[in-house]
């Protein structure tokens, strides 16, 4: 009986149903969504990693890359050093000399060799370089598949990767003498970690722009790629495995697991991830690892030379040597040999294990089924609010439901029977217009020269303060342009904006969970933005304070705040972003300027309208 009467009460009390309940539900979604994420590092919600693909057989082969190969390594290194340190030559001569040396080493080892020149222009900077690569054809294979070993001359941190390149050359000579390859092995030497692999992989799939040369020499479908980084001049302690790809795409978890299993299990080298050097497997460290991973995934930039492979569905990781310890280049070489043997065992593309996961330790992860609800709940809170507002605008001619007791019954009767007509034109055009307006900063930030980036950021910051207020003034007073908006139209504006936001974020959550979660979290106040009512002084004070707080969460402020916190210049970040858009095909800006920014502007308009 009690339940029945509660339901009846709810039905006869639209204020509770349409105003209070959605707010409660939205808040609950947000709280549960965030709490969900915080629960993930616990043992009960995360899982231990395991090798899913039977064919990989990690660490089952003995790696023979030792002994005399070390002499070869030293010899190659000396030869390369002699050219690099030649004081009499200028930079271009050195580059050409090194390239010729690499070619002669590859060709002496019996590999086919080729070069590729490329040039990229982005934000007023020109990036050019020359890739050199060589192919071992599988002696008994059918040349339909290949593995790539990449050694960039400059690591992701812009350090000279002399040991890495030398190791690749030594491995090429060593691998050539094995007859057990079922796939071709491609050795790719790129000038840096940002552009080289991108140019090469684009050209490999004939997707390159005109400024990039096509590849004269190709092999079969690429099954996996390993990037070798050894910029140290001393023995290393651990291997740092970098796995994030462009737009938050990840390599198959099996590849990461194989690397961890071979490094740790077979070679006795520890494996780290996400720059967590002293991971004690505590909750805090797991959470920290996961959040670092999410940040990289959310930003969607290339974290190393391996990242460019991901859009082509080629699983790739970077192995970075870190710390000071016992392990030498031979240990790294054996690790790579063993990894190559595992990849060589593959019968089909890596597909058994997860592509969507969050790692929180080298042997612990959560998969998409476990973590997805948290971002979906965040996105869902906007959708709930949007639907509630839509229904409310259909029932309520006014937004103020409180009446005196005597009138209540008759008033309610009138309201429920009197279905309001929705005035859609203005709200729709405003929401669509503001979303289209997002294209302007998107275009500007991707096309102007890098020296203007800081200025433009401040301009956008100014626009963020002025635009919502002026729009609010126009809308609430008309200013001769239109009739002042009625409350229903404010609700409709908010409804459409949140609907779009919720839709975009829940779609995005399946593609790039982290970006969706981050944007969702930054947008949570927008669910509760509305035109305030009440006496003027309190209303003005609240809305003024609200606007200031809201401005602290605007895209340019967040950007400036993060830059200030991490001590990176805004120009660097935006140059990188523009480079990502132009070269890597990064989509983060689109989400920021066409999803987040318009939704934020509308929140500002709604709050601002309470001033007028």
């Amino acid at each position, binding site marked *: 009986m009690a339940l029945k009467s509660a339901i009846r009460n709810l039905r006869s009390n639209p204020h509770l149903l349409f105003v209070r309940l959605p707010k409660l539900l939205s808040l609950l979604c947000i709280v549960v969504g965030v709490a969900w994420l915080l629960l993930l590092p616990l043992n009960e919600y995360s899982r231990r990693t395991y090798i899913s693909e039977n064919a990989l057989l990690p660490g089952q*082969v003995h790696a023979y890359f030792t002994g005399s190969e070390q002499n070869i390594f030293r010899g190659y290194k000396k030869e390369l050093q002699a050219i690099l340190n030649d004081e009499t030559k200028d930079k271009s001569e050195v580059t050409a000399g090194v390239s010729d040396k690499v070619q002669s080493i590859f060709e002496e080892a019996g590999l086919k060799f080729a070069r590729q020149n490329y040039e990229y222009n982005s934000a007023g900077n020109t990036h050019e370089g020359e890739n050199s690569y060589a192919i071992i054809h599988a002696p008994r294979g059918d040349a339909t598949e290949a593995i790539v070993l990449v050694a960039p001359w400059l690591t992701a941190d812009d350090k000279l990767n002399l040991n890495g390149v030398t190791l690749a050359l030594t491995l090429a000579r060593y691998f050539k003498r094995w007859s057990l390859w*079922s796939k071709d092995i491609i050795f790719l030497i790129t000038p840096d970690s940002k552009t080289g692999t991108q140019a090469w992989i684009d050209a490999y799939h004939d997707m390159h722009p005109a400024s990039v040369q096509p590849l004269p020499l190709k092999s079969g479908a690429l099954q996996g790629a390993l990037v070798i980084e050894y910029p140290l001049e001393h023995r290393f302690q651990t291997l740092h495995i970098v796995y994030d790809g462009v737009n938050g795409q990840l390599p198959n978890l099996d590849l990461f697991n194989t690397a961890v299993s071979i490094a740790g299990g077979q070679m006795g080298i520890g494996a780290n991830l996400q720059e967590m050097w002293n991971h004690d497997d505590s909750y805090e460290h797991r959470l920290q690892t996961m959040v670092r991973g999410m940040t990289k995934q959310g930003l969607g930039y290339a974290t190393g030379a391996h990242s460019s492979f991901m859009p082509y569905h080629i699983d790739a990781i970077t192995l970075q040597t870190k710390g000071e310890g016992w392990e030498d280049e031979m240990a790294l070489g054996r690790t790579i040999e063993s990894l190559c043997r595992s990849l060589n065992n593959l019968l089909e593309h890596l597909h058994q294990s997860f592509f969507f996961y969050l790692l929180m330790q080298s042997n612990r992860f959560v998969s998409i089924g476990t973590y997805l609800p948290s971002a979906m709940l965040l996105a869902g809170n906007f959708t709930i609010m949007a639907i509630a507002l839509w229904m409310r605008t259909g029932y309520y001619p006014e937004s103020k439901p409180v009446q005196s007791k005597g009138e209540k019954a008759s008033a309610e009767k009138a309201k429920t029977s009197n279905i309001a007509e929705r005035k859609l034109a203005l709200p729709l055009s405003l929401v669509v217009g503001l979303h289209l307006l997002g294209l302007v900063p998107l275009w500007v930030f991707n096309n102007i020269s890098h020296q203007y980036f800081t200025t433009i950021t401040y301009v956008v910051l100014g626009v963020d303060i002025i635009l919502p207020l002026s729009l609010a003034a126009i809308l609430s007073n008309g200013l001769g342009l239109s009739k002042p908006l009625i409350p229903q139209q404010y609700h409709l504006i908010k409804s459409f904006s949140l609907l779009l936001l919720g839709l975009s974020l829940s779609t995005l959550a399946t593609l790039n969970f982290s970006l969706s979660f981050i944007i969702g979290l930054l947008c949570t106040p927008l669910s509760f933005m509305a035109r305030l009512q009440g006496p003027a002084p309190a209303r003005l004070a609240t809305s003024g304070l609200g606007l200031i707080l809201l401005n602290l969460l605007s895209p340019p402020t967040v950007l400036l705040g993060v830059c200030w916190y991490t001590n990176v210049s805004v120009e660097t970040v935006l140059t990188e972003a523009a480079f990502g858009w132009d070269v890597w095909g990064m989509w983060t800006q689109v989400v920021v300027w066409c999803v987040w920014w318009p939704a934020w502007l509308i929140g500002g308009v709604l709050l601002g309208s309470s001033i007028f």
Partner: protein
Amino acid sequence: MALLSRFLQAFALLFLVIAVSAEHTSNWAVLVSTSRFWFNYRHLANVLSLYRTVKRLGIPDSQIILMLPDDMACNPRNAFPGTVYSNADRAVDLYGDNIEVDYRGYEVTVENFIRLLTDRLDEDVPRSKRLGSDAGSNVLVYMTGHGGDQFLKFQDAEEIGAWDLADAFGQMWEKKRYHELLFMIDTCQANTMYTHFYSPNIVATGSSEIDQSSYSHHADNDVGVAVIDRWTYYVLEFLETQVTSVTSKLNLGDLFDSYDESKIHSQPGVRWDLFPGGEQEGRLRTVVDFFGNVQNVEVENANATEPGSLKEDLAEIARLVEKWQKRDEEYADVLSARNTTDDSPTASLHLKPKGRVGPTKMAEDGSWGKRLVGITVVGACTAIWIAGSVLGRKSV
């Protein structure tokens, strides 16, 4: 011709009659690996090891059906091309140069396996792909691969169920295609595979109980894969070290007693109840009854008189021969009687026995004419050839 076919039938009948007797007259082995791919190297090594053992104990290639779904020896990943080893010491190359694979690659299917057992094969299937066993044959069936509760996977594409296998053996029994059968299987939950067998004279053994995995024994660090399964490894160890020759008197009891669960890491099972005399009788069968080759000749009981016995058949044949001779004589009498009355020259031809008809000589008419034509043709050809070569030389 009719006489000959009668004789053949009589002999076939003879073999069927001796079906249920303690002695067998031939040995057949069906050795099946059901998985392909490099990482399943061990399953092919298992089968090849068994193949080597039964060959050592004398079963000829013509009586071994070897089913290998993949070619590990020629896999590009094989560090030792052209070889397959079942031990990391790599002492014995199982692939050697003396191996006959009867069903290879995608021929290894459930359908082909069942058709092989029940002999439901097309006429054009060669003898090497047929199980030619009969009611006097002891058959060894060894299977290995990836399996589960009452199924065994064939090549990632299909599986054979425990009932399918039981029915196949049931049909074999009905068609008198075995005398006694030893079924061995090494796979996960192997013992579930023989739970449904119902035809008699079968001893079945498997590597692991229900819900148990069957494990690999060890890996070779240069080949890079596990090379043999535990159960097969220890069965082979017994066969190789104890059953040293075809004269070995070790029996199945000894073989099954050699199972050591602490080494095999799973519980192997044995099923005796289908065997006449049960475990007591079954244990006495020697290992070489199934793994070796016997050359026993069955001498039929010359004094038997029941229907279908040789004596009876020979008597029947003699009666038939007598009957035909009698009829021929009567016919000849009739003809000769007619001959005397008609005096027709053609009628006497009928009486001529067929055996007397010799090869006729070819007619000699016009032989000189043909020779003349031949000479002309040869002459003309020679003339054309000479003319051609002379003209050709000129033009060059």
